[in-house]
């Protein structure tokens, strides 16, 4: 290896200012510094040092999966360059069940459903969405086990849900669209727990049968008409809770 080319075990990705700020803030409370570094081929990243038994880097992507410098681009380049064997996307997401979920609860993806991958057919003269050919993608098994152990350990002030996350490019402010989307996805082993925008970009990092990724996000809203009125308050809590959950899980591993 060329001298100075850094490497890590785990790469954490965040997409917006609030997510990075939360990672920094929680890191400070847990005694984990985010040391800014520059790496000429890839630009800025953060070195968190050893968190538990993992060498951890963090990097900021643009919001969404497919735009330039979005999650797909950064994940592929950073994973290859830093030899990361796991990638965790951390941040905020929408919940799908206001009765059983709360703002700030953490969502852990055991699997992901890329909802933009769909066929549009016509039935009785009307367009209908067909997800029968869309494949669910499993998250990295060892990461899901790590997060399940953290949930069992308990001690957090927020709830945690493990299941399937919907991931795609829509910014949703409609409860009806959200509910129709959930209803149109074929049921499977994992129940749908929420949705977000960056996870789908991680699917391009590695083959489907060898996933390197996990997605852990806090509920900032329920993708409904109330979103805009509450987001300024709920966003920082959602991001902090997700960051705290992930950093705690890594730090507590093998302890």
């Amino acid at each position, binding site marked *: *290896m*060329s001298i100075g*080319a850094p*490497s890590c*075990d*785990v790469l954490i990705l965040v997409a917006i200012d609030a997510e990075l700020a939360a990672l920094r803030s929680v890191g400070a409370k847990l005694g984990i510094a985010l040391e800014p570094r520059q790496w000429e*081929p890839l630009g800025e990243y953060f070195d968190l040092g*050893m968190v*538990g*038994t*993992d*060498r951890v880097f963090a990097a900021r992507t643009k919001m969404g999966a497919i735009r330039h410098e979005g999650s797909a681009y950064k994940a592929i*380049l950073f*994973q*290859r*360059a830093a*030899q990361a*064997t*796991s990638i965790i996307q951390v941040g905020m997401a929408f919940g799908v069940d206001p009765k059983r979920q709360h703002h700030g609860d953490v969502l852990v993806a055991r699997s992901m459903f890329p909802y933009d991958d769909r066929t549009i057919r016509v039935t009785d003269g009307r367009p209908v969405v067909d997800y029968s050919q869309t494949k669910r993608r499993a998250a990295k*098994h*060892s990461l899901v*086990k*790590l997060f399940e152990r953290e949930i069992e350990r308990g001690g957090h002030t927020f709830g945690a849900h493990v299941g399937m996350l919907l991931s795609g490019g829509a910014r949703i402010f409609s409860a009806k669209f959200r509910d129709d989307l959930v209803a149109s996805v074929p049921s499977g082993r994992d129940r749908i727990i929420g949705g977000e925008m960056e996870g789908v970009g991680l699917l391009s990092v590695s*083959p*489907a*049968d*060898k996933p390197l990724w996990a997605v852990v996000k806090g509920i900032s809203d329920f993708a409904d008409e109330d979103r805009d009125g509450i987001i300024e308050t709920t966003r920082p809590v959602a991001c902090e809770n997700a960051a705290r959950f992930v950093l705690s899980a*890594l730090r507590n*591993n*093998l302890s």
Partner: protein
Amino acid sequence: MANINAYFQAEDEGWFDHPRLRRWRKFLQEGARLQLEVVRPRQGLDVGRAVLYVTIITNGQDLLEHEDWSDELNRGLIKLRVRAISHENEALRFGLAFAGAFEPAEDRVGDGFFNSVLKEELANGPLAEPLADVLAQVHALRPSHDSKSYSDCKDLIVGAIRGRALELTRDLGYPEHEANMILSSALAIYLDERFSVTDRRLLGFG
């Protein structure tokens, strides 16, 4: 109406639940010969999905069947003593198999610790010399031997390697010197993929 007891009839050793494996076993029982080729195309950074191509040589005809790679199908083919077409292809096959074989260790201890123990074990083990080049490109810290999980992780790693070694010698009948060569090449393939060694070089990082 079918007899429900048919559901409770035991299969030999439970290896052949997959219908493809039962079909291939039936061909073997009828005197056919089977040959395996594992194909995983690579174009630059793009590594395609691995596919198992099984050629069934029977009654003067060659039938070609294929399935996406699965650990289950591969294990079944090993139990059926079906070799790959070459040592190089056998190494690719076992390199792919190591991902599943090491999963219990990685699940148990997580990435960082697994990476550390794996590198140390291979660097100090009997295959250190043939793996020296690829291990030089793998970056992991030295693991703490005081950790309560160290011996568990090491045992799981050694067990996974030992299991593949026995598959090569006991099940597929390779003499030990050939099995060693295949095993070290397979581990090199596994390490290259896990730690993005070739990808890193192609991108100019290593």
